[in-house]
């Protein structure tokens, strides 16, 4: 299995996937504080034209919270890009038939799945850490993060949500035949979480709640308010990976 992890590493590097993802996540990391920093300046720029149309621009105050608000707005998009770039990791191999020589040498398919999962989780962790770290550093430099409470928990929760989405993607990759199907199923389940999250009685259990970190930063909610969602997300992620094992063994027939 170590050999296959090495192969995955080489694939991510040589196909340029790792580099693209790192660049995208660095950009997202810079974007949030930059956007917050530029808001007053932009407002001044447009003030003239806005006044003509009857709007008066008062002085806009930006602070660390503006930067973090942007971060939480950007996070889903960054996650979507990550999934898009990685969705064909499995199905691409089924379609091209590159796994055939590997499994006929006796490497069980579940080990292929585990090796790919480890690599994906690792890549996600690095990308997310970069993105979060850069936002954290710039926000601290321009304003003051001390006004933000529970930054660590907020960071962890988004990471967990990313892991869950990846686990879902891996599970669907073991059932589906094409990358498009994987994207559809993964996207579908996130939409389902959102839809269920609208029902007040179960909204606390929905993993999508983990992406909503702003109340945590503003001390409106406490980290313990998220416990149910964390447990749900973790259980679901583990279930996905465990259920993927028998599913991918069935793919061999193709």
């Amino acid at each position, binding site marked *: 299995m*170590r050999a296959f992890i*090495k192969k995955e590493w*080489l694939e991510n590097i040589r196909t340029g996937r790792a580099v693209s993802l790192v660049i995208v996540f660095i950009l997202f990391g810079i974007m949030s504080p930059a956007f917050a920093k530029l808001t007053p300046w932009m407002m001044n720029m447009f003030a003239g034209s806005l006044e003509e149309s009857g709007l008066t621009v008062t002085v806009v105050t930006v602070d660390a919270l503006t930067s973090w608000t942007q971060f939480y707005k950007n996070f889903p998009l960054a996650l979507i890009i990550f999934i898009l770039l990685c969705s064909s990791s499995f199905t691409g191999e089924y379609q*091209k*038939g*590159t796994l*055939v020589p590997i499994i006929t040498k*006796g490497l069980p398919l579940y080990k292929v799945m585990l090796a790919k999962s480890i690599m994906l989780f690792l890549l996600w962790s690095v990308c997310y850490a970069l993105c979060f770290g850069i936002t954290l550093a710039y926000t601290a430099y321009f304003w003051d993060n001390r006004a933000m409470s529970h930054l660590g928990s907020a960071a962890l929760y988004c990471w967990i949500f990313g892991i869950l989405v990846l686990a879902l993607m891996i599970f669907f990759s073991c059932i589906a035949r094409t990358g498009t199907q994987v994207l559809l199923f993964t996207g579908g389940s996130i939409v389902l979480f959102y839809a269920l999250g609208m029902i007040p009685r179960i909204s606390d259990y929905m993993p999508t709640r983990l992406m909503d970190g702003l109340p945590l930063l503003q001390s409106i909610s406490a980290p313990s308010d998220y416990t149910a969602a964390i447990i749900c997300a973790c259980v679901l992620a583990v279930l996905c990976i465990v259920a993927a094992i028998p599913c991918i063994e069935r793919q*061999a*027939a193709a």
Partner: protein
Amino acid sequence: MNSSMLTVSHLTKRFGAKQVLSDVSFTVPEHTVFGFVGQNGAGKTTTMKIILGLLQGDSGEVTVNGVPVRARHNRTNRFIGYLPDVPEFYSYMTPSEYLALCGRISGMSEPAIKKRTSELLELVGLTENRRIHGYSRGMKQRLGIAQALFHRPKLLICDEPTSALDPLGRKEILDILTAAREESTVIFSSHILSDVERICDEMALLHNGTIAMSGTLDEIKQKRRAAAIELEMLTAEDAQALHAEFPFLQTDAGNPARLILSDPQALPGILSRISASDMPFQRIVRLEPTLEDLFMEVIKK
């Protein structure tokens, strides 16, 4: 008699309503090159996938090196090297990186991998170490053989290894397969009968999901009805004269000087007639039965 490397007995497989294999049985002795012949869609690839444990047969048994094959828990694959019909590799790797991956999966030590890699790349003629991306079909086929032979398998299974190649590429692959017999038993499926005739010791012909014929090449050829004799006279007139006298001779519309005798018993009579009237002839030959004739005969049945 050698012991058998592969035994397939009473294998059946159905995909939905289509019975792909019905009662397929054959044995492959050690250190032979075994040709697995059949039309496209005859069930060759399905049989191979069952041997590899990629598919589960509906009934019947397959043993490799005496060990029964179980689908998806393919312990027997450590004995087998497999070359798929259209092998695909990770295009961002170089051939030696790819072979190293194969070696590590098979559990070989690093020095052994290094040694075997250079050995095999030499054998298949892929010594320049550029990435697989941009390889021609023939080069991929050769790399495919290298990966299949990498762990010194006892059984090498090749699915149509020569079908898509030019004559030179085909010859190279056939030479490599012949050389591989020293260390392994080779099974290769094909519908190119000249390739089978060239390198196989034994063969089986798969038709309509059963083995229509199997055995050594000589045995198979002898099973065929007695071969015909071709008489080609120098002039068409002589041929006509002979045909008038011996009406059982068949004429050839394309070549009026050519006659075919399907019953060799009548040959002495015809020969004495030719020598009596001093007819000049081009040639008189016994037509060897080709595999192609056999193939057509079986298919038409």
